[in-house]
């Protein structure tokens, strides 16, 4: 009985020690694109076969449409998105002066709607918000992810890191358990990627539709049998902030196609 107790304590010690994970060195970082079959890669690489491009087209239309009581469109202030939005997604989430917290791209779009367009915020995961987010992020396609250097983001980034390394859910798995420790291995029939948010919003074959990083994270949380945070929860933005640092150097691919 005593021996059993000692063994249990030892096992607990050893597994908890495994909680500190080293970041993937920049030269070893690989986008989820690299873990896909050639057929799925081809689907993403061709704008005529990538269904995410429909969201880009819809986003472009919404960009030019006047919104809310202001009668202003995004273009009224930001003009041509190809110029003004270039590089933006590559350095998001950014620090938001109003809330004193990090804000993701969809959150920023909604704040702009409220403050400057006198328009109601768009619901998370709505077609319209996904389309605008995809359109804006698409303007950074091909650019390397370069996390914002604002030092005020540091505590939030560290919170995101801790979420990434914490064992969650009934299955007691952390993001790191799969994505730091076992990329390239298989979970069921699926190849485990390194989990870099290079192409969000993505067209996911499993969803048969476009979705946000938050939707994807919820899928993983439910997968480990944890209670997922609500859409728009600050935890997701902290996690995204950390994930984008972890992905620094990889190119933005929005809209990506993923299995």
């Amino acid at each position, binding site marked *: 009985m005593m021996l059993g107790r000692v063994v249990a304590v030892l096992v607990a010690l050893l597994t908890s020690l495994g909680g500190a994970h080293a970041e993937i060195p920049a030269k070893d970082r690989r986008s989820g694109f690299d873990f896909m079959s050639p057929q799925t890669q081809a689907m993403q690489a061709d704008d005529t076969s990538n269904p995410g491009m429909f969201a880009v*087209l819809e986003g472009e239309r919404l960009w030019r449409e006047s919104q809310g009581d202001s009668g202003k469109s995004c273009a009224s202030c930001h003009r041509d998105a190809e110029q003004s939005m270039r590089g933006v997604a590559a350095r998001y989430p950014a620090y938001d002066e109003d809330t004193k917290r990090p804000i993701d791209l969809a959150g920023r779009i909604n704040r702009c709607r409220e403050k400057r367009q006198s328009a109601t915020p768009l619901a998370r995961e709505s077609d319209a918000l996904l389309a605008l987010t995809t359109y804006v992020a698409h303007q950074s396609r091909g650019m390397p992810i370069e996390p914002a250097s604002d030092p005020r983001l540091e505590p939030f980034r560290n919170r995101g890191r801790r979420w990434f390394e914490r064992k969650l859910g009934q299955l007691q798995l952390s993001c790191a358990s799969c994505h730091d420790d076992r990329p390239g291995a298989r979970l069921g029939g699926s190849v485990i990627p390194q989990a870099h948010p290079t192409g969000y919003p993505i067209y996911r074959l499993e969803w048969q539709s476009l979705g946000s990083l938050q939707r994807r994270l919820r899928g993983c949380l439910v997968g480990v049998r944890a209670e997922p945070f609500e859409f728009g929860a600050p935890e997701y933005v902290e996690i995204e902030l950390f994930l984008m640092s972890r992905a620094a150097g990889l190119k933005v691919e929005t809209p990506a196609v993923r299995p």
Partner: protein
Amino acid sequence: MTRALVNVPKTAARGEIIEIRAMIQHPMETGYREGLNGERIPRHIIKRFVCKYAGEEIFSAELFPAIAANPFLAFTTIATESGTLTFEWTDDRGETQTASAEITVT
């Protein structure tokens, strides 16, 4: 509005075999899925696709629920003359969506 994306080479040599790609935004609801309340989600699919080149049909397809959402088709044709390629999708409610592209053949 249902969107379509088509890709036709802008120019081609007479007699050259060219590749055409076309994709339309559509859920291709199979009719086999159940909603959260257990009720069957009704079928709603694109049934037919026709491509015409200068008014003449050069390719067509009959599509069934086993075609993936946002149906994508790639096929070939011989570049015969400068003109318009038209694309028409018809769904199972009888509604059609069209797109077109120009080609210059020298």
